[in-house]
């Protein structure tokens, strides 16, 4: 390595080497001009103080002349690595070396024009020097380049996996958990401690957070105890300043006293205990806004943060920012949905209370009207004439009708609130039961009924029963005045239908069919409250299905429905 004295020149006469050094020293001023030109010819390079470098160069030359090439080699190695990191192409070194070689040749020719043998020896030394220098630079240039590429690949790998991880977690509405994940990954990748905090809605504070990560559990607990309760004013302290400006702050070396002076007082004791040696604060950004700040701190004095760390941290923070922003948004939405749901539940409860009192309070006076009408008929029959009795009967049938209306309205309200419980339902069996019941209640009618066998659906049995009861009941009712009453219940694919040969209706009014209290026939001709189809409509809608009808006046009607059967 460096302390082994390299044989820089292969068996060159000492005189030639001395001549070379003499020429080199003379050329130093000219070489400094080349150095001054470098930034222009090679693109962006690390800033350097050219005058100081020339002075250092003379010192290295002096030691090389004394046989100690180590400073020179060290310099060449570091140049190779530095220029590789700066992104300079290796071909630039060729042109620099060539210009050096050219200027040395010119000087040698001028100095030893009359001594061809001496000139030859010096030129051989210059050539050998140039090639050795270039090969040392090349070794370290490519080694550094290789290391950079491996680092870049590793960084891309980290960015990719961590980015995917953050993106996957952005559905998590537990924002604190997501902040914890981000802090953990940054703490693992960049080290050592990391906290992620969000700016409050009013923009004035960095909110408390339990996100702090440090591989040392005791440090983690210590910091989280403080961070979970203490907020930090935006604009104050390191993270606060970053939150205010949106610009990262890197402090490679910091002693605790400096850090205490730079941070908000509530965190002083904690930072002192953690033993912070290097600090980095990164803005957390999303959609062009700064939404928070990431505080990174190292607790190893020999390993300060570098610009590389800052860039990597910023890249990770940008990935995290979007995920966190999404999570906050989703969380806000979910909270809003929860609030709406709560409001809906409240209004549902109020509605329930309302329909409850409707059922109770509206029935009571009805009962009185009916009861006292009946009492009149019973006790004062002898004092009433035919018309008087007729009026009382009308009164009583009106109260019965209103009672039926109240019952149906309550049913309608009840069904709206019911949760669907799906199970396999035998619709054919239900239809047969319903028809049997209709026949029992109305034995005088002759109706031909055709119910297809094996009609099944995955639906709520009680609710489907109400649907079939209503549709078949209507078919039964509206065929009453027709000579040949016939009813079909069948299905085509997932669409069930009830068809009849009854009075039908004018399709112009088909829209009104499913609204409550809409009747397409006079109550005088066909009884009913006009709520039945509205109930059916709600049940079908509740199942995610659809209902519609086709009809023609005096030619019958067909009602089609689906039940949103997921099977």
């Amino acid at each position, binding site marked *: 390595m460096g302390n082994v004295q390299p044989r820089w020149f292969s068996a060159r006469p000492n005189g030639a080497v001395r001549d070379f050094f003499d020429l080199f020293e003379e050329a130093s001023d000219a070489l400094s001009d080349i150095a001054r030109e470098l930034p222009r010819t090679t693109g962006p390079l690390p800033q350097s103080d050219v005058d100081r470098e020339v002075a250092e160069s003379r010192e290295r030359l002096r030691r090389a002349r004394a046989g100690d090439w180590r400073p020179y080699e060290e310099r060449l190695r570091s140049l190779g690595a530095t220029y590789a990191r700066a992104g300079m192409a290796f071909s630039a070194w060729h042109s620099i070396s060539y210009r050096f070689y050219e200027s040395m040749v010119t000087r040698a020719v001028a100095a030893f024009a009359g001594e061809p043998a001496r000139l030859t020896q010096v030129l051989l030394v210059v050539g050998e020097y140039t090639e050795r220098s270039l090969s040392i630079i090349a070794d370290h240039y490519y080694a550094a380049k290789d290391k950079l590429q491996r680092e870049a690949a590793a960084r891309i790998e980290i960015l990719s996996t961590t980015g995917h991880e953050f993106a996957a977690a952005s559905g998590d509405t537990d924002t604190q958990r997501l902040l914890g994940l981000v802090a953990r990954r940054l703490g693992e990748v960049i080290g050592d401690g990391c906290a992620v905090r969000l700016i409050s809605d009013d923009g004035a504070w960095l909110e408390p957070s339990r996100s702090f990560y440090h591989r040392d559990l005791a440090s983690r607990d210590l910091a989280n105890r403080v961070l979970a309760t203490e907020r930090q004013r935006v604009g104050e302290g390191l993270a606060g300043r970053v939150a205010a400006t949106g610009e990262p702050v890197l402090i490679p070396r910091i002693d605790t006293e400096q850090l205490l002076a730079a941070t908000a007082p509530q965190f002083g004791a904690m930072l002192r205990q953690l033993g912070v040696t290097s600090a980095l604060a990164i803005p957390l950004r999303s959609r062009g806004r700064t939404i928070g700040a990431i505080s990174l701190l190292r607790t190893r004095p020999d390993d300060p943060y570098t610009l590389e760390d800052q860039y990597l941290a910023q890249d990770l923070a940008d990935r995290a920012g979007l995920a966190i922003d999404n999570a906050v948004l989703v969380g806000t939405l979910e909270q809003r949905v929860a609030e709406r749901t709560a409001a809906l539940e409240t209004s549902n409860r109020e509605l329930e209370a309302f329909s*409850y009192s409707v*059922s*109770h*309070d509206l*029935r*009571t*006076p*009805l*009962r*009185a009207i*009916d*009861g*006292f*009408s*009946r*009492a009149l008929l*019973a006790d004062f029959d002898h004092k009433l004439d035919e018309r008087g009795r007729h009026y009382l009967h009308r009164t009583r049938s009106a*109260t*019965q009708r209103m*009672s039926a209306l109240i019952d149906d309205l309550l049913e309608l309200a009840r069904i709206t609130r019911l949760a669907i419980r799906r199970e396999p339902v035998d619709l054919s069996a239900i239809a047969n039961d319903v028809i049997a019941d209709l026949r029992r209640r109305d034995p005088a009618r002759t109706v031909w009924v055709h119910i297809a066998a094996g009609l099944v659906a995955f639906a709520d049995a009680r609710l489907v029963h109400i649907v079939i009861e209503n549709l078949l009941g209507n078919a039964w009712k509206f065929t009453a005045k027709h000579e040949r009453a016939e009813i079909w219940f069948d299905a085509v694919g997932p669409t069930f239908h009830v068809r009849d040969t009854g009075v039908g209706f004018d399709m112009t009014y088909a829209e009104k069919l499913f609204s409550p209290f809409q009747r397409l026939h006079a109550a005088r001709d066909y009884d009913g409250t006009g709520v039945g189809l509205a109930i059916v409509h709600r049940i079908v809608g509740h199942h995610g299905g659809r209902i519609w009808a086709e009809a023609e006046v005096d030619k019958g009607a067909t009602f089609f429905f689906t039940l949103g059967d997921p099977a």
Partner: protein
Amino acid sequence: MMEQHVILLVEDNDDDAELTARAFAQAKIGNPMVRVSDGVEALDYLFARGAYGSRDKRALPLMVLLDLKLPRLDGLDVLKAIRANDLTRFLPVVMLTSSDHDRDRLAAYHNHVNSYVKKPVDYDQFVEAARQLGLYWILLNLAPPAPK
């Protein structure tokens, strides 16, 4: 013949009270009917308190017809108080109400109601309900043995 047991009717609505009395009379149930208008008064009657302080509280009604929605103390609370007291623990209580709400029915049965009858709007049906109630609770049902 022993003194005729009364039927206690707890009903705040005068119309309903009158019609109920009439329905029981029409159903030929001869037991006198005592009517109170709210839950507090019902308990006062049963436990011989307040305005009913002079009543012998051991003379229990034959049955209680209890409305659910009552001023002050509601029907459910009256039922709970009846079941919580040793004297009235086994007293037949029939909920007679306009509500057939699931929750009300469940709450009544949870508190050991004997029957739950929805007052029909149709008066004729009401008379029939009264007749069956009287028949069952007065003639058919055997009361628990009296404490020794």
